[in-house]
């Protein structure tokens, strides 16, 4: 990198660069030069030799330039010592086009195939981690009690199917109304009770004689037509218009999920097509390529894609250990921060998941305060991923609550939320960025053009989330069911001698199977995972995918199961474990 930059800075400053280049060579050149000058050469030889040397130096630099240039590019995707290796590997695997580009362009016909960008060639090759392999495997051969009893049971996907029936019932009753409104009433009037908010939203409906039975609504300064049968909504490109209304509905839902400990301000919300792009957009907004985030391990395997892939940002692991029940310590954060600094990396923030995925523990108030202090001291951001906030059975404290009480320093706090987990609607693709930083808010809003939520879906949601009775029932029932499932799974595992960390939320059980792995290493862990998948036909997530520093831990996601499945799972695991024991 240093080299590249050196060459780059040359061009704008030809003057300085010359002295630089000359001076650099002169250091070594000085002896022959002097010999020449003091001897016979005088002016002529004394100027020819340095000139020639300088010429060769330029020549040398030019020849070498192509290479560092390429490296630089693959860098902007791979970025860092750790990730660089895969992408540069792919570089060499590309049919040599990028590197020999200049030559290829000179010759009129080049036969090599057209190349894709270096930054995605790594992505194309990827997907070999056990996490994704396992998911793929289940997709090919999914277990079904009746249709495919020998299929693979999915314990690797964080999906909650326990309370889907409630959503289904609601939709069956209300879907049509949500879109079309109930009879004569405008569907849009369903939003009216929220008005007006912070001057953000004006809302009036004017009945007009013109255009048949059209009525006109203005939401946030936009006109649109409302017909008598209220089917206007779909096609007017309502992303802009509806964002605020959906924002309000989502804000209301978030408050309800967090038991009204916090009230969320809709004007601080940016909606995205899922939590995945929400995290990526924040990563784009907070860090430049080559910067880094601190992330406590074990963490959600998807972060490696969401935070790093397109942004070129790096993740610095902050190891948490079983001795502390995988709780985050500020000392570990500090250590990782300093190590990153030593490597010359700029740390731009900490990404926490609360409740944590995969462990399932919560960050308590004190830790959150300490975290905020730490961020303040280092002048960095905090991204708090609270997507499982409503799937907890102990008191959950949102980062928003902490900064609400403490009026300073809100600007460094950003919250990610979504409806995929707490409302078990991943197919709807609704994610939320909630930020206290106006610049980030403005930037994220503009970037949401790349990842907008569809208008029909927004309409459904406004209606669904505004039904507070439904939401309340859903949250309570969902919590109960998750808890029941969790208890059964843990009991089953314990019977086999598998201990797990006590979870306070989420869909997971973080289990210690280090006693069952053939060697105490990642290799042993992946071996066991492979056996569980291929012999036992259960797909779990090995800790190494979550970058857990201790081998032998596995994530069991239980929310895709039914209670009847649990004995089957146990039996299958037992079958695999026996020979080792």
């Amino acid at each position, binding site marked *: 990198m240093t080299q590249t930059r050196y060459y780059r800075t040359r061009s704008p400053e030809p003057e300085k660069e010359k002295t630089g280049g000359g001076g650099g060579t*002169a250091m070594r050149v000085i002896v022959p030069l002097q010999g020449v000058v003091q001897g016979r050469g005088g002016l002529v030889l004394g100027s020819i030799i340095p000139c020639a040397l300088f010429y060769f130096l330029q020549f040398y630099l030019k020849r070498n330039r192509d290479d560092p240039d390429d490296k630089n*590019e693959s860098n902007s995707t791979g970025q860092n010592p750790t990730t660089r290796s895969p992408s540069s590997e792919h570089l060499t695997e590309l049919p040599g086009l990028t590197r020999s580009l200049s030559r290829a362009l000179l010759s009129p016909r080049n036969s090599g195939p057209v190349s894709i960008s270096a930054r995605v060639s790594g992505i194309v090759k990827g997907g070999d981690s056990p996490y994704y392999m396992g998911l793929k495997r289940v997709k090919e051969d999914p277990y079904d009690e009746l249709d495919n009893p020998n299929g693979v049971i999915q314990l690797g996907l964080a999906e909650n199917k326990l309370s889907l029936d409630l959503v289904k019932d609601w939709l069956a009753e209300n879907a049509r109304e949500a879109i079309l409104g109930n009879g004569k009433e405008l569907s849009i009037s369903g939003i009216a009770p929220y008005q007006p908010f912070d001057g953000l939203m004006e809302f009036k409906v004017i009945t007009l004689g013109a255009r048949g039975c059209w009525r006109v609504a203005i939401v946030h300064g936009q006109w649109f037509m409302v017909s008598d049968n209220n089917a206007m909504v779909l096609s007017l490109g309502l992303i802009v218009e509806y964002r605020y209304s959906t924002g309000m509905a989502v804000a209301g839902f978030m408050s309800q999920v967090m038991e009204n400990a916090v009230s969320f301000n809709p004007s601080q919300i940016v909606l995205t097509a899922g939590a*995945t792009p929400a995290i990526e957009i924040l990563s784009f907004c907070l860090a430049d390529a080559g910067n880094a985030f601190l992330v406590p391990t074990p963490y959600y395997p998807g972060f490696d894609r*969401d935070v790093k892939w397109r942004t070129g940002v790096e993740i610095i692991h902050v190891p948490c250990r079983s001795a502390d029940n995988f709780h985050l310590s500020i000392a570990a954060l500090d250590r990782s921060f300093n190590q990153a600094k030593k490597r010359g990396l700029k740390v731009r923030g900490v990404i926490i998941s609360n409740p944590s995925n995969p462990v399932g523990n919560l960050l308590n108030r004190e830790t959150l305060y300490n975290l905020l202090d730490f961020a303040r001291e280092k002048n960095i951001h905090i991204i708090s991923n609270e997507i499982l906030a409503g799937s907890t059975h102990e008191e959950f404290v949102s980062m928003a609550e902490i900064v609400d009480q403490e009026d300073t320093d809100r600007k460094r706090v950003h919250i990610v939320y979504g409806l995929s987990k707490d409302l078990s609607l991943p197919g709807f693709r609704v994610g939320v960025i909630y930020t206290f930083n106006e610049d980030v808010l403005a930037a994220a809003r503009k970037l949401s053009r790349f990842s907008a939520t569809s*208008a029909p879906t927004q309409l459904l949601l406004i209606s669904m989330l505004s039904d507070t009775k439904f939401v309340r029932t859903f949250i309570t029932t969902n919590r109960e069911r998750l808890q029941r499932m969790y208890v059964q799974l843990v009991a089953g595992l314990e019977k086999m001698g598998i201990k797990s960390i006590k979870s306070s939320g989420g869909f997971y059980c973080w289990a210690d199977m280090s006693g069952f792995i053939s060697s105490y290493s990642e290799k042993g862990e992946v071996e066991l995972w492979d056996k569980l998948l291929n012999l036992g036909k259960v797909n779990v997530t090995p800790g190494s995918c979550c970058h857990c520093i201790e081998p032998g831990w596995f994530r069991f996601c239980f929310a895709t199961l039914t209670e009847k499945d649990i004995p089957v799972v146990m039996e299958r695991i037992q079958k695999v474990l026996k020979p080792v024991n």
Partner: protein
Amino acid sequence: MRLVVPLQGVAQGRGGLLLGSLIPCALFCFLQLYLKRRRSPSDPPPPSTSSSNQPGMTRHSSLSNLLSRGPLRISSLATSIAKPDDSPYYMGLDKASEDPYHRIANPDGVIQLGLSENRLCFDLIEKWTSENLRDWVMGREGGDLSISGIATYQPSDGTMKLKMAMAGFMSRVIGRDVSYEPSQMVLTAGVTPAIETLCFCLADHGNAFLVPTPYYPSFDRDMKWRTGVELIPVHCRSKDNFVLSISALDQAFNQTRKRETKIRGILLSNPANPVGNLLSRKMLEALLKFAEEKNIHIISDEIFAGSIYGEKEFVSIAEVVDSEDFDKNRVHIVYGLSKDLFLPGVRVGMIYSFNENVLAAARKLTRFSSVSAPTQRLLVSMLSDARFIVEYIQTNKKRIRDMRDLFVAGLEELGIKCSDSRSSLYCWADMTNLIPSYGEKGELELWEKLLNVGKINLTPGSACHCIEPGWFRCCFTTLDKEDVSVVMERIRKVVGSCTSCG
């Protein structure tokens, strides 16, 4: 080379070994220091434009980390885009949405001719949805399957059902025997992310695409913002009716090469936005040859493929590639439902590529921009309703044509000529003799007058990077027929005062 002289002086004079080595050493030391100081500001790869906006934090970052003073930094990307828009395109859009015109409720509001929306056939869509919405969410069966079909995780690049429906729709839109292969499709949440995703896949940071001007103003956002890719304008001129020429392409290519920027492709829009002309089969063949010769990609934005209403036939680059012996791997098509089926709110875009690697990469990148499942289900049933689609396409073409004829006639009465085109939702109007001075400044002055005095928002050619000043894009499909006369009246008011003053 200049350095040689002082060195010699020293050597020939008194200095000898000591001074002769001390001076270059010192120089070298200073140089290093200088370079080191310069390095931190240019540290983030995004080029100078963005990093120059930084409030000087980067430079002292190590210091500030110790003292924890100074503002909290956000990325240079976010810093540069968080600022309010200064392009007339976005300023005009904002202005029009703050004070929107309505014939009865707000007759003094701003008339929107800058946003490319097609509301002419809205009634058809409205009718269809009100008839068919009943079965939308739960499906006709209404069973268990259907809830998990929309609530749970779906393939992020779109369901096979929707891809097949899209393929059918596209063939119908083109109206000939062109078939699209669903397995070559990747669906995204709108065309905007489709273009960005392709850009990520085809080019690295610092690479460039050639784009014929005038072009769609938002390409600057879609192609450049997050990818760090450059757009190199290839200028088309009024004397060629803004038709692209290969020689202009070649020239731009060579100029860029001299700057040592790698060109990874050409970005076309066909039918062109804003001009509205079509690329002929011959032109497409020439483009493919050019791309082959330079070994670069072609992205063809065909979002207006169905909004064609003249005699001239639309030829998709997919057809050309199919019929001739071209290398398919370099061809990528972008399509969406925002224009041809006016459904921008549903956010459905598509990448259609012949390149397996690009498809594989794009599929993975759709995790950042996937289509909502309820929407997919809605679209499957809408697009599969052949009767509705055929009727829609026919009616839509007719209504756009009628509107265009009306609009162009109105402009001609005012002495404003439009470029001859029979596609897209725009007319590209020549107002060069109305601008107070022949330059971008004059153009923007007229635009501002039209917006503030005349209360109509047009897109000035400079926002589309048009090289000739005085051209304006008018999107007429947001209007009602009755509105056209109002627009003309307002233009007349401004133009009248213009000719009198200049």
